[in-house]
């Protein structure tokens, strides 16, 4: 057992913070920043709802519920912002904002997340936009290998190498095994084509 586990003689408390555990990640400054963004988003949605054409009567207008939703969302953003200000978010908000950005890029976990986002984005782009299918009809083997298989092996091996930090051979073996298992289950088991194969 790890050394930082609580002493078994001390009763532990079960702490409930909602169906999704969100309590620890919130700070007043973050809430204020979120309130600004959501407020701007709500205003944009409201303007777009207001200019939607009214085909029949105003009470059946396409923009009616979107408009009401945007107004109430704006109200919620104001409420969230006001609460954050009451809790001291405005004190040195600009400094906190730049410090948070600085801290984000200084934090190894966050940088790894950005790298992962980028890798996944590029991987999806390659699969969907640069696709091809090879048909192998040789030595009694009839098989179609698509861009999905190739790109998945390459990107998965890369992601495994970066995060798992095992040898390249192991990463490639896992990537190849998993890719072909997925293809076998989806394509051959349930006749669902892989992305990029249509």
């Amino acid at each position, binding site marked *: 057992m790890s050394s930082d586990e609580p002493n078994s003689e001390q009763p532990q408390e079960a702490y409930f913070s909602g*169906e*999704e555990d969100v309590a620890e990640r919130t700070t007043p400054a973050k809430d204020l920043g979120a309130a600004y963004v959501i407020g701007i988003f709500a205003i944009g949605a409201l303007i777009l709802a207001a200019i939607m054409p009214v085909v029949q009567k105003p009470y059946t207008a396409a923009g009616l519920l979107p408009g009401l939703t945007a107004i109430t969302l704006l109200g919620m953003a104001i409420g969230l912002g006001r609460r954050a200000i009451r809790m001291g978010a405005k004190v040195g908000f600009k400094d906190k904002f730049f410090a948070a950005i600085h801290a984000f890029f200084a934090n190894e976990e966050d940088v*790894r997340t950005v790298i992962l986002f980028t890798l996944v984005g590029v991987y999806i782009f390659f699969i969907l936009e640069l696709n091809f299918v090879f048909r192998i009809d040789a030595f009694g083997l009839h098989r179609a290998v698509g861009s999905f298989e190739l790109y998945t092996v390459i990107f998965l091996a890369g992601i495994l190498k970066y995060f*798992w930090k095992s040898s390249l051979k192991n990463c490639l073996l896992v990537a190849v095994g998993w890719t072909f298992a997925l293809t076998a289950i989806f394509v051959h088991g349930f006749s669902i084509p892989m992305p990029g194969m249509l």
Partner: protein
Amino acid sequence: MTTQMILHALSPYLLFICLAGVTLGIIWGAMPGLSTTMAMALLIGLAAGMDQDTSIMFMIGVYTGSVFGGAISAVLINIPGTPDAVPTMIEGHSLAKKGEGGLALGTAIAASFMGNWVGILLLISFIPLLLALALQFKSWEMFLLSMWGIAVCGSMSAGELPMKGWITGWLGLLFAFIGLEGLDGVPRYTFGTEILEDGISYIPVLIGLFGLAEVLRVLPQTSPYTIPSDVGRIVPPFHVLRKYAWSSVRSGLVGTIIGAIPGAGANVASFLAYDIGKRQASPEERAKWGKGSYEAIVCAEVANNANVGGSLLPTLTLGIPGNAAAAAILAALEMKNVVVGPTIQTENPGLIYFIYIGLIIANFLMYGMAIALVKPCVKLFSLPRTLLMPLIIPLCIVAAFAVGLDDFHVYLAFVAGIIGYVLHRFGFPLAPMVLALILGPLADENFRRSLRIFVSKFETKDWTSVVAEHWIGVILIVVVVYTFYDGIFKRGKEAEA
């Protein structure tokens, strides 16, 4: 019809599919960082290639298995496989440290089995009542019910600050309005792009929010855990359940009722049953609470498993999913063109019986597989998270593509993954967004239809019929107003204090 359904559900192929679902679910739920919703969201892709009955059996198996699976890692490595297993972790791991891990897990298995039974029996008992009530719902009531569903989901999922849950719900509503609207075919928020005219499907969003976003969040983290060398013999001790029979029944009721409330899932159920159990326990038993109590495990596990049956109540009768995992069941049904809601019995005769039987079969299979899979799961825990999590990325992409065989769905899942990650970092819950995407079109259509009816009644000065015909609507208005009042003036103030 019932006999036919039983025989059909007991066919070797469907039994095998259900077993596969239960096995996948238990393993998935047991792995730290992989939640029930994630399992459900990603395995929809696989269900897309199955016929209706097969996909139902598979998804029910995954759901039943994954809710229990969380208990394995909770007891053995002190990390809850799913968030609802936190109370089980506190009690079970304390017992494991005393060398009673096998008995603690056995208790969790027996309690889960019992919990599922309570949930199934209450589901069977209350569906006819709820269906009869649901048939009384007119446009105005459906609109109010949809809005209440989103509001209460926001309240339940956001903890101390319901406002944040509502905000994600309202953002989800705005996303739900994207596309050509139903009455006049007016494009909304499409910015002239054809691809947005079909609207935003909630299935890729579910995959993005609960699949990709979770991988992106969890993979870069480093959190090692210690693997136990010996688990001990796993014997589900039914004498323990007999001893805590009243606690089991009470927790089962709590779990089912909580499951039936939109947005309140297994997490709320297990914590609430655990808390009530602690208050109701004998002083001698209460002293063990937090240090390894079998009664506490019974309370938490019965409740979170009873939640499965409860969450299907509003899903099947009203088309409003009880939680995000039930939304995945709804998605699997909708992919097979099954329209759930008040008319489910007439439009899909026998389907409800098939679902009941599926749940019962899945429960028996869960019981057997839980005992068989504990030791293999311990071996799986020794695999690093950095090896397992990347494997989910291609699965997310394949799942998003499989639901519509459309590239746009893959991009949508990716964008939803980014949005989910950002919202999570800012402390916003994600489930209300999915619920709003499901309920948004329903709310919009019913809102405008009911306004049209109300205006015609007001023009004829037919005031009395408005209230007389909409007494359920009046009750729902009070409930909606109270939900917001409670969130703003009670819980909001408590959070600030």
